[in-house]
């Protein structure tokens, strides 16, 4: 039983990291960024390229080199997010929301098949693999890499929370989420803040991508699709647009999958999680922590 909880928490923290970007972007400009899952995929490939070009890094293979690669990949995917926003979303900011949504799907395909063109269609195997001891905690097995990745994910979420709740930029983000026009009148540089939101959200997705590559070992150009859907589900369950909601939703979804598979069988895993998405959309579209969305209207 405890094993199910541990596994659920671990997968859930990946979902949460990706869901945060989804939720932040939606909270601020009301855009469902369907290309977000593919930013995760680009992050995984950026990490792969870094590890394979810097062979010294791969050889040392320690935690430090992983963190360094993680940081560089995060900056790269962050800049990619800013670029995508500037090129594909900003020109359409006044357009109907459907137009932006379709553009987002287009961006998703461009990223997927762009990477396919550059890196080839075959799955790649990470040079650096996290391995380490196994701990036994009340009958549940936890491995060292799981602990490390869980800590990194938690650290990133705490840092994000600090940034949004305590910093000037964070206050500006919250102001824009509340009312972009009024924020503009109060002297907030809306474009710049939206850029930064994209940077942060994409960097988090990129981090999740590198971590998934280093932990699971294999990456391919379509890996962002499923995780994008899962992150969207997590964001909806938690309450889209709400940061705590994204974290909660990610972890809940991880737990749901873990328990659902155990009781229903593996073939039902995705049916189960997407059924939850439908239930939430029908009965509580604002999610668990979504009351604030109503407040915002």
């Amino acid at each position, binding site marked *: 039983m405890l094993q199910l909880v541990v596994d659920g928490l*671990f997968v859930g923290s990946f979902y949460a990291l990706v869901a945060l970007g989804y939720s932040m972007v939606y909270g601020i400009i009301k855009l469902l960024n369907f290309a977000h899952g593919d930013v995760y995929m680009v992050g995984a490939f950026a990490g792969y390229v870094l590890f394979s070009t810097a062979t010294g890094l791969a050889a040392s293979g320690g935690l430090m080199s992983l963190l360094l690669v993680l940081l560089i990949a995060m900056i790269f995917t962050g800049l990619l997010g800013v670029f995508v926003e500037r090129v594909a979303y900003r020109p359409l900011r006044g357009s109907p929301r459907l137009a932006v949504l379709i553009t987002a799907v287009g961006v998703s395909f461009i990223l997927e098949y762009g990477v396919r063109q550059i890196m080839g269609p075959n799955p790649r195997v990470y040079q650096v693999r996290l391995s380490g001891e196994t701990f036994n905690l009340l009958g549940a097995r936890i491995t060292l890499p799981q602990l490390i990745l869980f800590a990194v994910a938690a650290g990133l979420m705490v840092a994000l929370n600090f940034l949004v709740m305590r910093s000037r930029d964070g206050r500006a983000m919250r102001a824009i989420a509340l009312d972009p026009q009024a924020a503009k009148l109060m002297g907030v540089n809306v474009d710049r803040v939206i850029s930064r939101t994209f940077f942060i959200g994409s960097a988090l997705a990129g981090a999740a991508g590198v971590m998934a590559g280093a932990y*699971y070992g294999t990456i391919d150009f379509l890996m962002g699709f499923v995780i994008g859907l899962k992150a969207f589900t997590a964001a909806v369950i938690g309450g889209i647009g709400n940061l705590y909601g994204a974290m909660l939703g990610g972890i809940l979804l991880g737990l749901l999958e873990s328990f659902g598979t155990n009781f229903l069988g*593996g073939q039902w895993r995705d049916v189960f999680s997407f059924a939850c998405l439908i239930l939430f959309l029908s009965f509580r579209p604002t999610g668990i922590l979504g009351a604030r969305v109503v407040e915002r209207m």
Partner: protein
Amino acid sequence: MTNLSRRGRSRLRILSLGAVAALALSACSGGVTGGGGDEGTEEGPIRLGMLAPFSGSEAAFGPYMKNGAQMAIDEINEAGGVLGRDLELVTEDDACDATSATAAANKLITSGIVASVGGYCSGATLPTLPIFSGAGVPMVIPAANSNQLVDADENGVFLINGTGDQQAQAALKWAEKQGVKRLALVDDNTDYSADLADAVAEQADGTGIEVVLEESVTAGESDYSANVNSILSADPDMVYWTGYYQEGGLIAAQLASAGYDGELLVADGTVDAKFSEIAGAAAQGVEGTFTQTPDMLEGADDWISKYTELYGEGPGPYSTQAYDAVRVVAEGIKQADSTDSEAVIKAIQDIDGLELFSGPLKFTEDGTLSEGGFAIVEVGPDGAFVLKDDLQS
């Protein structure tokens, strides 16, 4: 004068247009009927089509099949061809995907192939059967081996690889030999994989082996810890994974890190060096059910060195089957003494004793091999699978 010459020119233009149209029409009809029968393919090389994955998750296998087939074609052409005509191989990428495969099959038929010698992924091969069959193209399938290919009951389908039933037999034989009592079956919900798991479950009835779990995973994800948990709680002596290597590698690694210490047997879709790369240390000791590859066969040394010389690397899985598929088709055309599809299909069905890598060929009524030829392989020290037991005893 100017008028006349102008009219002359326009008449010339009409004439030439007509000629172009006629040419185009005849070219088209040649292409269309080419697949259907004798017409339009009486001259020039006899074209054999091959669908194989050259991109996508199974892309590693396409080139092996292509090289093997090309080798057979070159040998036959050097010896004078078939019916005095050369053979020519036309390949198309099916990406191991049903949609790409049907499009590619239509493309092959338009290019006027006389027979198909391809098919790797069962899920991608299955929807192409009615297309080839409808166009009167006999199929000798070198690698795909789902039972559904046999059950589809289309005209002119022959499998030169053992079927799922035969692979299931081999897996159970090995499990019995290892003293396995509790067996867990894990598949990835594809035609090939689910069929094989079902076949094992069916055949296990009445043996001393109990199937304690039949579980499917969703292909394309990275975390299978939830599945691993249910495997562990079923507490099997052996897990038989019937899917492909990408998920297989992940499951092997995740089983090992979750503390599973029983045996892991994988099906032929996972028997690939990439499996060990993905599984890492967890690959050690993993066994697989597999059709024999050239390096496992006796007396294939000459063939291997010739292949290596031609393509700069050793022959991989299914290169021999593709080589044999071409030879079977060539033999069929030779016996039929025509490229007419009905005659060729009948001739292939009647082939008796043509020496293939897997032994003398004789097809059953269903178009499957009368002898399956599955063996047990094991991950060697360098990560490649090597022969462990040929299951002959």
